[in-house]
């Protein structure tokens, strides 16, 4: 298990190794979630998808598969936000390096 910390004003994207990615899904009315970016269907980038502000569901941009908020929560690492400080627990060895970035746009966080 690896615990990471970052400020949501500075970073919103985490990469582990070559394929594992997480983005900060942050919509009004829903707790910010370190959402697994990889669509379980064919690997599409969920951060480029759309989200339903009311239900919190996210739709993949590739094949328009929709994931409910509980389904997203089950695939996402344990996360807690205090103010703008985010702490997440990734299910990887503690010494595995991760990269924290800031994506200019997380489309899934934008209003439809």
């Amino acid at each position: 298990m690896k615990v990471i910390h970052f400020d949501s004003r500075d970073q919103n994207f985490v990469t582990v190794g070559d394929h594992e990615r997480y983005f900060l899904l942050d919509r009004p009315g829903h707790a910010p979630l370190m959402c697994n970016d990889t669509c379980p269907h064919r690997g599409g980038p969920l951060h480029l998808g759309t989200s339903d502000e009311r239900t919190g569901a996210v739709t993949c941009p590739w094949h328009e598969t929709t994931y409910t908020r509980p389904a997203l929560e089950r695939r996402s690492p344990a996360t807690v936000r205090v103010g703008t400080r985010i702490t997440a627990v990734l299910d990887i060895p503690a010494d595995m390096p991760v990269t924290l970035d800031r994506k200019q746009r997380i489309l899934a966080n934008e209003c439809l």
Partner: protein
Amino acid sequence: MKPAISAVYRTTPLAGSKIGDISRNFINHPLFAQPTSFLCEDNPFRRPLRPQDLPTIDLTRPLPQSEFASNAALLGQRLLATIYETDLLFLPTRMDSRRREDMRAFYDDDFRQSGELLRPTLERQLFGFLEDEITVSGNWTLESFRAYAADAVAQANRGASEVVRTIRQARDPGAAATEFLVQLASDFLSEASAMARNVLGNYGPAQSGLFTILIDEYGYGVPKQKHSTIFEATLASRGLDNRPHAYWQFYLPSSLALVNYFHFVSKNHNHFGRYVGALLYTEATLAEANRQQSDMLRTIFGTDVDTLYFDEHVQIDPHHGKMALERVIVPLVARCGNGLLGDIVRGFEEFRLLQQLADQDLIDQIKFADRLFKAPDSGALCTTQPGLWDGPGVLRFDEPKGEISVPHLHDVDEIFELTEGEIEFTVGPAHAITLKAGEAVLIPARRLHGTKVLSERCRYRVAEAVGYGLVA
């Protein structure tokens, strides 16, 4: 703040107008009335506050984090502490007719009923901001929780305490350390009372785990080993009054918040997950804090202080941290499922945040108290700023000998000038100065202070000092 309840089970909350009626009736109770001394000597039932502040405060408005240490928060925390503590038994060391009458009033069913009606409103007012500040999401498992808690505790136990550093660096470290002990008295003299709320009922092995921690807190039934008794000895070693709530009027809103939070998440058992999360945080981090505090007290006071309270926690709290995790949280999660971990994380983070806010409030108060000796210099500022005393915002007071202004705080910087007589201006039991006519003091926003008239008659005036660039 409230756990989700399906519509069919929901109870209609009391209307705001009802809350207004109940709070006015409650706050005007004689137990909250004007005192004759800053000390509530051997009378834990007398809880002076400032009923006159109520009309300016909307108890139904949740205070944002930025108002955590405001005057509205102080009034609310004083009321809430009183309401919670009517569930606890306090007995004065000496009972007389007045104390007996006060005791009857404190535990009177009608008084308690009014308090119970107000309690949820006050809890929302004072702790509602935690809901906005903290969110928990994702897939929590016991394994991820263990990693998260270990990381958070290691962070908390790293480095020197800012409170300890502030006290050590004070102009008068002894006086600063005394104020620190006084704030701790709000909690430690009835230590673990909130915990005791959680050991009744029937909820499996975790109940026994919590009970073993409670037994330690209560000294295995041996009065001298009880943690509150050990802290009484600490206070006595410094010549401080060690009877419960002798220093009630000097408690900061943040000190009361720490005590009240544990009652808040223990009084209503819908919050039991939050309670055990907060318990884990405090038990797992207190040993290091107490080690630094014990060292500080011995450095400042030498052998003239009893530090057993702090040394005992250095020894026992690492055990309590492990017990809270392995013997309380693990069996609770086994019984309730991983869904409970969200509440446990919330409680852990809520108490961590409250502790950080309380530390800052105490640091600010100690710094204010420590430079109080410069206060009469502020009188010169009044002559260089003649415009201070113009305008409708200036308040003028004319008070008789012995009149007390119960310690309170303002939400903006103020200047206080004595124009006639003598007054004691105090910001804590170890920090008071006498002001004479023509002398003034700058009171920074949200710094606790009170006054007592020393002369036959006393006149003073108070003005907002915002915009004058005055530094207290």
